[in-house]
């Protein structure tokens, strides 16, 4: 059911049609100056990087279990069943935890606006929902960027690796990284060359916090009973004393006198 993008760097010709199509789709400025920029930003959701005649795309990986969505306190970021990780600006309060948490450094911020938004590729969620492919896949003249069912794209990527021994780095990037992503990458040069970390965990990142958070509901009644119990034990002696003596007025704070002193002085 879940959709994905397969980018095969060996088919890419650095025409940057995907960049242009993405800008148009997301109503962002695109000219020669923007085309020359080589990093993702609040006004450029995808870039084609070049090193000699080797190319590599960068865009939001649309993780299967995204760190960004898991940390967002107001659920402004959300993973849809179709694959895209979407953003609802009206919910966002601008804490930027998503930016800190994303293992790929994808979400960008409109630092210079008074009503800033988080900006990132949302895998053309409206198009995908309507059964169309993403704008970047649509625009790609060589099929380097291909849109489809995630399962089928994985099979195809495995086939390409199998059929062309030595051509590719033997790794489908995004198959297992941080629990899998909806963007899959193939390359003939090591992924690190383009800033993709290959030492990422295979566990979905939200697990790391969930392991702790999930204990909280158990902790609350336990903590309450332990603290209440300790209080009961430590105050037992006073209770006994109180029963034996006529009750004294108990004052929790010893310094209630000054206020009365005040009054009397007036």
């Amino acid at each position: 059911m879940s959709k994905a993008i397969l980018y095969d760097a060996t088919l890419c010709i650095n025409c940057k049609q995907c960049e242009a199509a993405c800008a148009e789709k997301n109503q962002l400025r695109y000219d020669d100056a923007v085309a020359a920029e080589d990093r993702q930003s609040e006004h450029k959701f995808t870039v084609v990087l070049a090193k000699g005649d080797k190319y590599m795309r960068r865009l939001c990986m649309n993780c299967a279990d995204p760190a960004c969505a898991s940390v967002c306190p107001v659920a402004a970021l959300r993973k849809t069943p179709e694959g895209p990780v979407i953003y609802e600006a009206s919910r966002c309060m601008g804490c930027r935890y998503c930016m800190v948490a994303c293992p790929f450094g994808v979400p960008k911020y409109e630092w210079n606006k008074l009503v800033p938004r988080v900006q990132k590729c949302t895998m053309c969620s409206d198009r995908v929902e309507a059964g169309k492919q993403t704008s970047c896949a649509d625009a790609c003249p060589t099929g380097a960027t291909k849109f489809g069912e995630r399962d089928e794209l994985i099979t195809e990527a495995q086939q390409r690796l199998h059929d062309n021994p030595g051509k590719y780095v033997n790794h489908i990037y995004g198959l297992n990284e941080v629990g899998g992503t909806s963007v899959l990458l193939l390359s003939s040069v090591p992924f690190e060359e383009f800033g993709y970390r290959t030492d990422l965990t295979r566990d979905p990142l939200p697990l790391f916090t969930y392991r702790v958070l999930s204990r909280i509901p158990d902790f609350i009644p336990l903590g309450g009973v332990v603290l209440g119990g300790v209080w009961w034990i430590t105050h037992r002696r006073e209770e006994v004393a109180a029963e034996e003596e006529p009750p004294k007025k108990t004052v929790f704070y010893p310094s209630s006198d000054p206020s009365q002193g005040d009054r009397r002085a007036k």
Partner: protein
Amino acid sequence: MKIKLSFWKLVFFFLMAAGVYATYVRFAKGLGPSTNLSDQFPWGIWIGFDVLCGVMLAAGGFTLTAAVHILNIKRLKPIVRPTILTAFLGYVLVSVALLFDLGKPYNIWHPLIMRNPHSVMFEVAYCVMLYTAVLSLEFAPIVLERFNLQKPLKIIRAVLIPLVIGGVILSTLHQSSLGTLYLIMPEKLHPFWYTPLLPVFFFLSAIAVGLAMTIFESSMSAKHFGRQLELPIIQELGRVLLVVLSVYGILRFEDLLHRGVLKLLFQPSYETYLFWLELTLALILPLALLTQKKVRMTAGGLYVTAVLVVLGFITNRLNVSITGLEGSAGVRYIPKWTELAITAAIIAAGFALFGLATKYLPIFPSETEHVAHEPEVVVGSEVLSHAGD
């Protein structure tokens, strides 16, 4: 004395003026022009210092209320009020700082209706909100007493114990959760600081800092208001501090050992230096000092130790939130003047409010308890004339 007071007044007004101007820049121009934050480094000192350290410095509130009301250690009762006051002011100021940091501060209430229980930040937001409510109820008797309102006083006293228990649970949760915040970035945070034990470390160090802050405040108020806690109480706090720090130290060492990070500690690097700075201030020096009977028994020695502990764990929080993330971000973050000005103004406001509260409200176990009540009128009016110092 007169000259000294007006010097601090001057400093205060200077900091406030700079803060007001910085506030204007922040809200008129936006986060970009008013901070050195960037896409590579989205969290700076407003989170690392104002929020993380602010909450940590306010930990005395729950530590002391638990000791007095739950463990029934009556000797510590006279210092419950100053710590509750610090905690209450601390949390209010943390919320103010958050308004500066949030990109859309007017949406700060969104977690109330837009829930994501999987988010640590969501959990922290709820705990901090509820705990601030608890603190204001714990603080209320002080104000109510001042105006001698017996009815509401009775109600609060009746629910005090459940309130204290709730406060301790909420504090345990969010003090540790501030560490949990960083568990989501195992690949980004430097191995000196990334450990599954982060929540435990944040919680234990909050207790240590809570104790240190209480010692520190006691000495401060001795200097400025002529009121001081009795030496035996501070000595007792020093003793507990030694135990907490030892437990923390051993856990920290074992953690580094088991994660195989110890060898990194002797490879010179930016992170190594700051790690050693943290360790020296927070653990090595305080432990060396506290194990000396001479130091542990004197007010001066305890004061110095407390200051070291506070500075050490401030370094720790800044290391987790800034130093430890600079490597993976590939940038160095140095706060802009506006960030510093707002932080300084918030701290100055905290000191001023603390001073005002101790003057007008029955916070410290005042000497008047042991003295005849009549002369207090004179003291009172003199205090009024120094308002805002």
